[in-house]
Every structure is written in C-alpha cells, then in structure tokens.
C-alpha cells in the first residue's frame, strides 16, 4: 500500500500549520554531551557506556485524526477495514 501524504492542495502534511511545529525543541546531542561531561566530572576514571533504544514501528502506533481515518479505509476480501493509525513507518 502506498500513501502519499503530500498529494493535492489539501494534503495531510500541508494542513499542519507550520508555525505549530517549527522550532519545536527535539533533544539533540547537546544534552547527551552535557550528560557525559557531568558523569566525567563526577567520576573521571569510571568507564562509561552509551545505549540507544528504538520503539518498533513507532509511527504505526500513533492514532490519526478521525477525519483522516475515513481516508484510510482498506478493502480486503470484500470487507472494509478502518486503519486508525498513521500509515507509514515500520
């Protein structure tokens, strides 16, 4: 299945007011750098390790707006299924 979320003039992506999402502070490596330095400061000789964890198919876990859900109805073997979650990712 292919979903083009920027298609048309009223597409899903273009209907998000840009001012609502720009400048939203994502954590970056700045925080990690500060964490590492504070550990180093506290105990310079202790060996450190990094970990990274990723949620499986995170976008498929996100419910979308009900108005968009009606556009995500899939016909499978004659039955209509409403896909309630974001269609991409995984």
């Amino acid at each position: 299945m292919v979903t083009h979320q920027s298609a048309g003039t009223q597409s899903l992506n273009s209907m998000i007011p840009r001012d609502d999402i720009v400048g939203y502070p994502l954590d970056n490596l700045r925080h990690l750098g500060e964490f590492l330095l504070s550990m180093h400061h506290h105990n310079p000789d202790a060996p450190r390790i990094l970990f990274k964890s990723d949620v499986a198919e995170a976008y498929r876990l996100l419910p979308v707006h009900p108005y968009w859900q009606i556009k995500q109805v899939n016909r499978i073997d004659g039955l209509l299924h409403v896909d309630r979650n974001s269609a991409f990712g995984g």
Partner: protein
Amino acid sequence: MLLVSWIAKKRRNIELLATYSDDSFGPEDANNVTWYQPYRKFMPSNQAKMLQLWDEINLPHKEKKQVSGSVLTIIGIEVDANALTMTMTHNSLRELISAITNFTTNHHRFTLKEWQRLAGWFNWSLNVFPLLRPALNNVYVKISGKNAPNRNVRINNTVRADLAWAVNHLEQDSGIRLIQQIHWDVSSTDFTIYCDACLEGMGFWIPDECVGFYSPVPEQMDSEQIFYFEALCVLSALHHLIETHDPRPSSRLLIYTDNDNTVAIFNTLRCLPRYNGILISAADALINEKLNLRVLHIAGDLNFVADAISRNNFALAEQYVPGIIISSFTPPRLTLGAAQK
C-alpha cells in the same frame, strides 16, 4: 514518546535520558548492568529499566534495535563515551559538503522544500560543528514566512557567501569534536574581559592585567546602532586577545557585557543579518585559533569600569582601578557593517 520519556525520567529515575523522535538514548556507568529477562542478557541498567517500562505499557521493541557500546552512532553521529568525542564520519562530511556546494553553485533557485532540507541537514551537523551556525542566519531569513513547499525561492549572494564560508571550514575539519570544548564551566576560564559600548564609544578592560582599551564610534550613531557596537566591542576584545596574547589552543575566554542582545547572539550564534558579519568573524577567529568563548551578562551598574572607558572618561576609570593603563584600539573591519542597513 515525550510522555513515555517523562515517565522514564521522573518516575523511573532514568535521569540521563534524551529522546529524539522514537529514539531514546543516554549514558550509563559501564559497570552498571541489569539482567533483562526477555532478551536473556545483561544490559546497561538504565536501558533495562526503560525497556521494563515499555513492556509495562505494551510499547513494542525488537532486540536488534536495543543497542549499547562505549562508541555508538546516535542520530548519525559517532559518540565516544570515554574519549568524550563526537565524530562525523568522513563519508557523512563529504555528502554534506557536496550537498551545500550543489546548492551554492548549480542553480539560482530551489523549492522551499529543498531549502528546508538543506537547512535541516546543516542544522544536524551543528552537533559537531557548532561554530558554523552563522551560515544559517541568512538562509532562515530567506525562507521564513514562506509555506508553499514547491514554490521556488531564489538564492542570493549573501546566502551563497555564508554557505561557501561554511564549506571552507568543513573541508579543513577532521569531523571530530571534543565534548569538553563545547561545554565548559566558567570556573575554568583562562582570560576574562569586560566590554561596554555607549553613544560615545566602545571600551573593554582586562582586570588581570589592569589594562583598558577605547575606540570611538561613528558620530552619526542612533540608539538602535548601539546594539551593533556592543557586539562589535565583544568581537574587538576577542581579536585583541588573539593578537596580543597568542593564546594556546583550547584556551577558554570569558567576555562580560551588560547587553542582553549581545549575550544572546554570541551564545546562540543566531542573529539578524546585520550582525552576521560579527558572528562570522568571531567564529573564524575561534576556529582558526582553536579557542573557546563564552559571553556572559553582567549587570550594567557592576560594569562601571568598562562603562567609564567607553565614555572616554579615563580619569573615572583610573579612580575605580588605580594604575589602569588605557590605550586605543581599532575594531576589526567587516564586510557587513552598521552603515549597511
């Protein structure tokens, strides 16, 4: 994910945890491991605690995406927890350089989406090259307020020059950044300078050496231009220190000013176009001399020595600091200046 992170930090006491979209990452004491039964192995304790939280709320995860190591690639950048370095791989660096070069040389216009993509890419690289931030200031001016993603936006010579400036530095860079150079504490400062500017002039002084410096400003200055000269004064102090002291690499320089605007632009390296020449000149000096600069705020009434110097009132400065020697300085020449509005 943010709520889950909040629970992890506040309720499960995983204090050192950062979240980027659906990636969660953090450091842990290498000896601090916990047996995680579902994957039947020892994992960094904080990571195990977080997976237990995810299990509790039925957030799915796969074993191969739960990684750890003393060196780990996080959002595309190689972080070494013990050497305390952040490295952009040679290939990533080449790709970034080629994307910017393509932008500045091949065409006159790009779609808004292409501008945003380049800005986002460059912004990511600032994790390793924080001093190159001024290269984005004019880019953001070009694309701000626009929202038709496929509409073309013309590139101008200022943006070209700023991006070419960044490429020039990227090409000479190893791609390795010491974390200790990015974040440092004021208590480890090597040089401290106090700056001030007023309608009459600019002044700075170095308490450790009991010396001060003064320069007049152009006579036709209006009150808005005072911000420009506050910032120019900080830049002048930086250049002065380099010329007279030839500080060893990694020296830490602290400059105080009572002007909030100047503190903000030097610490964020974000500014309006008219100040960008100042930030680019400062970044050049810091990169070439391998120096670290922090600009901090001091209350105006505590900055009385620099204030007296900037007002050309050397007698008053001498009263505050007996024996102070005051000479003149010439601010660095910049291509963009207060005259250009």
